[in-house]
């Protein structure tokens, strides 16, 4: 700490010398400018205006590309939007949504998928990270590299590969595995349960490495002495996991939980790629966002689709606010 301060102050001195040489007369304003321009320029360069100039692109993009569109979407969700004419229909879209059988299927699929992903990804990636951290293995670097690669592939590529692996032919990889284990080849992507499994496997394949990295980063904040003293007291790997790692990894788990829930609730492209479009047999791969896409883009029922979007947005916002609250973010911001 001391050393960096010393370095920094040297750096500052060097910078000062540099500036004295270079920018001696930069702030003197040329008399050519009119009074108003002078004062505007002065304001632009003032310390009060500067932060707003810096954050202005953010504010503009948020207003133009997030707030305005969402606002319009909220309004549209109360309308029946047709080409050229719109009709205010109050809550009818939402009411219709509650009785929509296909929407219920989509919601069911999405939640089932999200829960499955949480149950698989979180424990596995946590255990993997603990093993890496415990240093009982060599070559962990190679494993980390390999595990990370799926996250680099585009969903288009990953989805296509998995669709072909889960092909119907008895010569597709998964059916070969089944036959090797003594089973019969099945049509993976046409049955509800196996289609669900395929989607989960694809999601795990893509995200296990990244989640493991989150946990490894989290574990590095836990002092090694804790594990040493636990080992002296006779706690083995399992009890160290239960007694030290899991409780102290709570912030990481909260974070992974939130992004996984977000990813699960907004799941769409994976299913889109796996079923070669948005139409899976008897909607076994239809998700909420898939339904939104179908209504909004494919059927051009913008009002109805907006209602779907707003409902989902509310759920996601509620979950994320809870996460921010749980990690104590609001408190911290108030203090600082």
């Amino acid at each position: 700490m001391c050393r960096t301060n010393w370095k920094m102050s040297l750096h500052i001195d060097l910078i000062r010398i540099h500036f004295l040489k270079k920018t001696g007369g930069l702030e003197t304003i040329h008399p050519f400018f009119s009074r108003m321009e002078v004062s505007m320029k002065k304001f632009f360069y003032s310390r009060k205006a500067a932060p707003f100039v810096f954050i202005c692109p953010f504010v503009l993009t948020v207003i133009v590309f997030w707030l305005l569109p969402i606002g319009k979407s909220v309004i549209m969700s109360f309308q029946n939007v047709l080409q050229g004419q719109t009709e205010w229909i109050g809550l009818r879209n939402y009411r219709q949504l509650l009785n929509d059988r296909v929407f219920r299927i989509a919601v069911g699929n999405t939640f089932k998928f999200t829960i499955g992903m949480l149950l698989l990804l979180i424990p596995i990636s946590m255990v993997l990270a603990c093993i890496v951290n415990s240093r009982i293995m060599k070559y962990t670097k190679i494993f980390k590299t390999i595990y990370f690669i799926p996250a680099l592939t585009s969903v288009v590529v990953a989805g296509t590969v998995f669709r072909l692996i889960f092909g119907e032919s008895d010569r597709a990889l998964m059916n070969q595995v089944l036959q090797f284990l003594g089973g019969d080849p099945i049509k993976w992507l046409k049955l509800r349960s196996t289609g669900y499994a395929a989607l989960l496997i694809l999601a795990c394949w893509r995200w296990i490495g990244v989640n493991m990295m989150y946990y490894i980063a989290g574990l590095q904040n836990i002092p090694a002495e804790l594990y040493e003293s636990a080992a002296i007291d006779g706690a083995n790997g399992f009890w160290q996991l239960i007694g030290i790692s899991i409780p102290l990894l709570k912030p990481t788990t909260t974070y992974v939980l939130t992004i996984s829930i977000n990813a699960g609730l907004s799941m769409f492209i994976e299913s889109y790629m796996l079923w070669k479009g948005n139409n899976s047999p008897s909607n076994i791969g239809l998700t909420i966002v898939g339904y939104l896409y179908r209504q909004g883009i494919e059927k051009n029922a913008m009002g109805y689709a907006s209602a779907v979007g707003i409902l989902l947005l509310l759920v996601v916002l509620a979950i994320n606010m809870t996460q921010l609250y749980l990690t104590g973010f609001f408190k911290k911001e108030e203090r600082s």
Partner: protein
Amino acid sequence: MKRHSNSSLAARKAASYFLFVVIALFIMIPLYALFLATFKDGKDMIQYGLSLSLDWEKLHFRNYSMLFSGSAHRYWIWYRNSMLLTVVQVLLTLFVSACVAYGFAAYEFPFKNLAFVFVLIIMSIPFEILMLPLYQQINDMKMSDTYTAVLLPFLTHASTIFFFRQYISGIPAQIREAGRIDGATEYGIFFRLIFPIMKPSFAAMAIMNGMNSWNNFLWPLLALRSDAKYTLPIGLNTLITPYGNNYDLLIVGSFFAIIPIVLLFLLFQKYFIEGMTAGAVKG
């Protein structure tokens, strides 16, 4: 007693290796199957799906020669478009996000915390939920089928802003004060003093944004209409449609879509991991 603990340690070690190797196989096999498929007929892919089976006599390099002879397909146009968009997106996003982050980190102003909570909330909304309103907004602004429409909404990337803000907070305020004393303008301080110091934090964010942009599928799919403007993921997606089942190009093209990123990853692994796990380390 000691011997007992040694043998249980060995068992744990063996179990760990076993687990890691099994998962490594699970991860590598699909990619290996894709690699093998680049030497097989596209028609076989449609009929039989992907597998690890090898029929040495049937393997050929025709897919590669077709890919590289390239006038009958648009693959390299898509490739170039993707490259171009990725580079422009990374440069713009890093620059604008750095400015915004500096505004948040270096100044006090009314509603600052509220605005920053906004950054976090926006960061957490999955894009899929916003795609429809955004799509309409682009249409209303008469920007559809332009690269501006692809780039502009993501000009300020919330988690990049978050990452940069943390980094700038670590730079001593005395540097800014020194700049002020010596007569630099507020903007001069940022561009000449802070920006150079921030350089190390750019690598991770450049890689994260670059990867997102390279792999981005849903938004370009909605925003772009004309074939000549397609990016690689949407271009590849068109090959899957029932009309043009061109699996030769799809498979070998998919393979070459992964290659540049994997190579970059092997070279700059540290930055990849730093960039992609940046959101988890808060505080």
